């Protein structure tokens, strides 16, 4: 009998304490800075022009376990002409960030994204470079 009464006391104490619910989506929990989210390209200034730090060497595409990155270099500049990431294949392992020799990729904390077609999940270099990746009307 004693064990049963102890159990009842525990639930009664829980009844009078504060619930731990977080009312998503009105309140959200904070994600730590090292949390997993989307991967995006870094942009710096060279002179006054914004350029990508990426030089389209292709090391990230070779090392990706899922082969979801496509890179093609521009003819005369060291900038990517085509840089596409297919997020429906990505497993967020961050091997691309670790192996990049130019530190051109970084990780955000975006985790809420909903798409209606399969093409939504292929991000090209314009989407990857923007600050807010999911505003309306910017995906082509």
């Amino acid at each position, binding site marked *: 009998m004693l064990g049963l009464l102890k159990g*009842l006391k525990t639930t009664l104490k829980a*009844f009078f304490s504060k619930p*731990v619910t977080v009312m998503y989506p009105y309140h959200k929990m904070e994600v730590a800075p090292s949390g997993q989210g989307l991967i995006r390209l870094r942009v710096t200034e060279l002179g006054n022009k914004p350029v990508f730090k990426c030089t389209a060497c292709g090391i990230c595409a070779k090392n990706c376990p899922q082969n979801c990155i496509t890179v093609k270099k521009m003819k005369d500049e060291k900038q990517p002409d085509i840089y596409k990431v297919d997020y429906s294949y990505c497993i967020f392992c961050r091997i691309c960030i670790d192996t990049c020799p130019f530190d051109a990729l970084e990780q955000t904390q975006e985790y809420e994204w909903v798409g209606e077609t399969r093409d939504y999940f292929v991000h090209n270099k314009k989407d990857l470079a923007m600050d807010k990746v999911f505003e309306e009307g910017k995906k082509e």
Partner: protein
Amino acid sequence: MVWWLVFLWALLKLVIAVGFVLVTALILIYMLRKVMGRMQYRMGPRHHGPHGVFQTMFDAVKLLGKENIIPKDVDKWPYLWAPVIVFVPSLTIFALLPFAEKIVATNIEISLFFVFAIMGISTISLIMAGWGSNNKYALLGGLRSAAQMMSYEIPLILSAIGVVIMAGSMNLVEIVRAQQNIYYIVPQAVAFFVFMTSALAELNHTPFDIPEAESEIVAGFNIEYSGFRFASFFLAEFVNLFIICALATILFLGGWLPFTNPVYGTLFFLFKTYILIFVTMWIRSTFPRFRLDQFMNFGWKLLLPLSLVNIFVTGTVVLVVDNIRGL
């Protein structure tokens, strides 16, 4: 000219009674979700009205709107009438429960006996449901549940006999009146324990809910029911919960005493009933469930002898005290 007025008055009382029953069921379901949620560190329903009070009503409306599926090869008569029959005893008993001194629909001499007699009818609806669905799991679940309910009715009734001996009458109003000096929970503590435990088993509540929540062989007798037929089994369970807690209040906790005023009496009666309902829900969210053979053992080998011993001791003490007073 007078006869149709009488008829109208009876119809009005009937509508009020049925309305009260359904509103009670809705309130109890809402209370269960909130209480169980709070005990698990979460909130219950929150949208749909302030603090989610309309959630159950919307759920009932949703269940009403579901497709009317009758599986092939069912036995039509038991299958279709089982959800109706499970409600009938509960509504009938409401006519006999006293809420205050004068507020009782019908007051007959042996109302306690009548209540227990009618409560047994709801068992047959489970057997009908189990047989009527053309499914071996439903049959197994229905038979198990029927066996459980039948074997726990005996300690339930026997534990109330101690109260009848002390009060000297089977009328519910008389029993409450006889508790003016002391509530019967104090001399009849053992009977109270047996009554509440058998009540949990009658209602298929945890820790005795093997027929209902058998996660090994799916959900027992109501596996083939969907839509409002399922809802009627569910509502009937909550109405039965209210009835049994009201009976326990009348028999052991003194009903509406010490208030004789009808308004205050009813309110105090409802307050005591809801405390007992809260205790049932508290037990429901804490304990795991027994295995089938373990609780058959518990019922036949522990509760039945306890209630018999209780009758014996109560009878002896009452006889001795009466003789001493007579001397």
